């Protein structure tokens, strides 16, 4: 099990109802973690439209998660 900190932004923050949480999970990758959170919180964005950053850097959906990681799911962006 990994103890993770998760931060939410934009649409995901609104659908989660909070900006950050700590979570103990069996999810070993961001893809598995997003699926777990999507099932729990009803996120409307499918996993393939969400990118992920681990500890402040973009990461692959199948990157390994470790205890203490900061995970940020990134909805489709719209700067400018």
């Amino acid at each position: 099990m990994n103890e993770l900190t998760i931060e939410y932004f934009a649409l995901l923050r609104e659908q989660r109802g909070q900006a950050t949480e700590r979570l103990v999970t069996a999810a070993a990758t961001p893809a598995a973690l997003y699926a777990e959170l999507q099932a729990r919180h009803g996120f409307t964005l499918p996993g393939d439209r969400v990118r992920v950053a681990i500890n402040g850097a973009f990461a692959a959906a199948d990157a390994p998660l470790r205890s203490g990681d900061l995970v940020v799911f990134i909805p489709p962006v719209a700067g400018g």
Partner: protein
Amino acid sequence: MFRISPTPLELPALRAPLADARAGALVTFEGWVRDHNEGQAVQSLAYEAYVPLAEAEGERILAEARAHFGLLGAVAVHRVGHLALGDLAVWVGVTAAHRAAAFEACRYIIDEAKSRLPIWKKEHYASGTTAWINCATRAGPATAKPRG
């Protein structure tokens, strides 16, 4: 220099670090808050950013532009927070010895910024609804119902 700013952008301060006797061209881009999008009347909008990653990725975009176009200087700043119509949302300024490189690099920076930076835009419409841009899903648009 790339920054995310929670406060209004001040043009003289943004331009100042670009002063360079070798430069023959300064090209700037200003992104303004517009009163419409895809047929809807926009009243205001809110930008939100994952600041540490947005600033790191923004610096990478500027470094790419400096290397590829041979720029002398490059500065970009993006606002976050609630913005009104006409407000300055993003500013890009680049200097080069000649104008062609400066025009191309400025275009490159704003295009990459829009597609790569973890920044999100929520539009508030005259109809009372809101929407996170690019976040609609087939299951239904990511649009909140009017309040009240």
